[in-house]
C-alpha cells in the first residue's frame, strides 16, 4: 500500500470541477494500487468469462473431449428449437404477468402507506418490506404449501369462497401465474419504497393548489401524481423487466419448469442445458441472447438515469 507518499500541496477543487491532482506517474501508480484487487477479480471473473462465453457460443463444447467450431449453429438452434422458443415465449409471458402486477400493487400500497391521514405509516412500510429479505426459494416453499391442493390453507379458503383452483402447480394454465405471484410477493416491497421516495419528492403545494381548484382525488392522482412520478415509474418498470428476464429460483423450486414446459424460462433453460445436459456451447449462445436483451433494456434505463442526473443538477 502506498504509505510512502510524500506530502504535496494540492490546490482546492475549483467550483464544480475535479481536483487538479495532476496525472503524474505517481498518482497513476497510487490509483493502480487502490484499483488492483477489484480489477483482478473483475478481469478474471467478469471480463474474461464474457469473452470466453462468446467463444464457447460458436463451439460444440460439452466439457469433455475436443471442441469444434460450429459457426452459428447454436444461435440458429436458439431461434428454431421449439423448446427454446417456448422458454422465450414463457419468459415474455412471465414478464407480462409480473411487471404490471408488481408495479400496480407497489404503487397502490405506496399511495396508501404515504397517505398523510394513515397512522403508523413507518410501521406499515416496514411490515410491507419484510418479504423483500425472504429468499425466492423460501417464498416458493411457503407458497407451494399455501397452494397445496389438499392441505393448502389458501386453496382451502378459496374453496370456502366457491373458487376451485385444484392443483395449481400441475395446471398448465395456472402454474405460470402462480410462480409470477411469488415473485410479485417477494419484490413489490422494493418498488414500493422507491415509489414512496418518488411521492415524497412531489411538492405538497401542487396538491394544495389542486384542492383549492376543486380537483377530485382521482383528478389529483391523474394530473399531478402520475406525471410527477413518470421518471420513477419508468425506472421501476425497467428494473422489474430486467428482474423478470432472470426468473429462476421459485420456478426451480415450485415446478421445475413444468407442467409440460409451461414454466420453463430462459435462465431455467441455460441452467438445464449448461449444467445438466452439459451443452456448454448452446448454453453460452442462449446466455448471449439473454445478455443482449438485458443490455438493450439497461441502455434505456441509463437514458432515464442520465436525464434524472441532469434534472437533479
Amino acid at each position: 500500500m502506498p504509505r510512502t507518499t510524500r506530502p504535496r500541496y494540492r490546490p482546492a477543487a475549483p467550483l464544480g470541477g475535479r481536483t487538479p491532482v495532476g496525472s503524474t506517474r505517481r498518482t497513476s501508480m497510487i490509483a493502480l494500487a487502490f484499483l488492483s484487487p477489484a480489477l483482478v477479480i473483475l478481469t478474471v471473473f467478469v471480463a474474461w468469462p464474457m469473452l470466453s462465453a462468446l467463444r464457447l457460443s460458436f463451439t460444440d463444447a460439452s466439457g469433455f473431449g475436443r471442441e469444434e467450431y460450429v459457426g452459428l449453429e447454436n444461435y440458429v438452434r436458439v431461434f428454431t428449437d421449439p423448446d427454446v422458443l417456448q422458454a422465450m415465449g414463457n419468459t415474455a409471458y412471465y414478464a407480462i404477468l409480473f411487471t404490471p402486477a408488481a408495479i400496480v400493487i407497489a404503487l397502490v400500497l405506496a399511495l396508501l402507506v404515504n397517505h398523510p391521514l394513515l397512522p403508523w405509516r413507518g410501521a406499515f412500510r416496514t411490515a410491507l418490506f419484510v418479504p423483500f429479505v425472504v429468499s425466492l426459494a423460501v417464498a416458493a416453499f411457503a407458497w407451494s404449501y399455501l397452494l397445496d391442493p389438499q392441505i393448502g390453507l389458501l386453496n382451502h379458503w378459496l374453496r370456502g369462497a366457491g373458487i376451485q383452483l385444484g392443483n395449481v402447480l400441475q395446471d398448465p394454465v395456472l402454474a405460470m401465474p402462480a410462480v409470477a405471484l411469488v415473485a410479485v410477493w417477494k419484490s413489490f416491497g422494493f418498488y414500493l419504497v422507491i415509489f414512496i421516495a418518488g411521492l415524497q419528492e412531489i411538492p405538497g403545494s401542487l396538491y394544495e393548489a389542486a384542492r383549492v381548484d376543486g380537483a377530485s382525488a382521482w383528478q389529483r392522482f391523474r394530473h399531478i401524481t402520475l406525471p410527477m412520478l413518470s421518471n420513477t415509474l419508468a425506472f421501476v418498470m425497467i428494473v422489474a423487466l430486467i428482474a423478470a428476464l432472470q426468473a429462476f429460483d421459485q420456478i426451480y423450486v415450485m415446478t421445475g419448469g413444468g407442467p409440460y414446459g409451461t414454466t420453463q424460462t430462459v435462465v431455467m433453460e441455460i441452467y438445464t442445458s449448461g449444467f445438466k445436459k452439459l451443452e456448454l456451447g448452446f448454453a453460452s449462445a442462449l446466455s448471449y441472447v439473454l445478455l443482449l436483451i438485458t443490455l438493450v433494456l439497461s441502455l434505456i434505463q441509463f437514458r432515464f438515469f442520465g436525464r434524472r442526473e441532469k434534472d437533479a443538477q
Partner: protein
Amino acid sequence: MTAVANRGRMPSPHRRGRARASSILLLIVALVATAVVLLPIAVIVFTAFKPVGEVNAYPPTLLPENWTLDNLIAIFRELPFARLILNSFVFAGGVTAFALVFDSLAAYALARLDFRGSRVLLIAIIASLMIPFQATLVPIYQLVSDLGWVNSYAGLIAPRAADAFGIFFLRQFFLSLPRDLDNAARLDGASEWRIFTSVVIPNAKPALLTLAIFTFVNNWNDLLWPLVFTTDAEMGTITSGLTLLTGPGGIIPQGVMMAGSLIAVLPLVIMFLLVQRRFIESVASTGLK
C-alpha cells in the same frame, strides 16, 4: 432527499371529523393489506411448530393446536443443517467482507484520484453493471472447476469478491463527501492511504452499511450460485440445501420444510428489523440516484 417534505400536511380544523373517518378507513385497508402480505411468513412460522398430524390435517388451520419443536429438531437430521448454516454465513459474510474492502478501494481511486484512463475504466465498470450473472455462469464454472474450487468456499466467494455495482455505488457516495476534509488532510501531508482509511472511510459508514446489507442478503438468498458451484450436500448453503428436500411428490413433511425456512429467514429478518430505517431509506435512494 426530502423525506419529510409532506409530513406536516394536516387537514384544516373544519375537516377534522371527516379526516378521522378517512383515517380509520385507511387504517383498516392498511391492516388487511399487511395481513395478506404477511400471510406466507405467518404460515412458515406457525407450521414450523405444528406436529405432523396437524400439518397434514384437513381442514387446514393457520395456528398450531399443540406447539412442538419436533420439526426444528428433524431438519438437523434430514440435512447437515448446522453445516449449511455455517456455509451460508461464511459464503455471504465472506463475499460481503471482500467486496466491501475491494470495492471501496477501487471507488476511492475513481472518486478521488485523477489518473490516466479513469474515464474509460469508469465506463467499463458501468457497462459491466448490465451483465446478468447468469450469462457468464458457464465460463465462470469452467474457471472455478479448472482451479479445483468446486465445492469450496474459495469457489463460492472469489468470483464475487469485487463487484461493479458496489464500486459504482461507493464512488457516487465518495463524490458526495465534501473534498475540504481530504484536502485539509493533504495539506497536513497525509498519504492517500491515510486519507482513505482515516477520512473517507469513517465518513462513508452509512453507504458501507447499506452495501454490506445488500450484498449479504443477496448472497444469503441466492439459489443458482450455490446450486452451480457446490455438488456436495455438505458444501451447499441453507437456501440451496433446502431445495434438496423438495423433490417431486414432496417426500419431506411440510412442517420440516417450514422449520428449515424459518431458520433460513430468521437472521435476515432480525438484521432487517435492527437497521430497517436506514435500509429502507437507502433502497429509496437507489431509485433516485
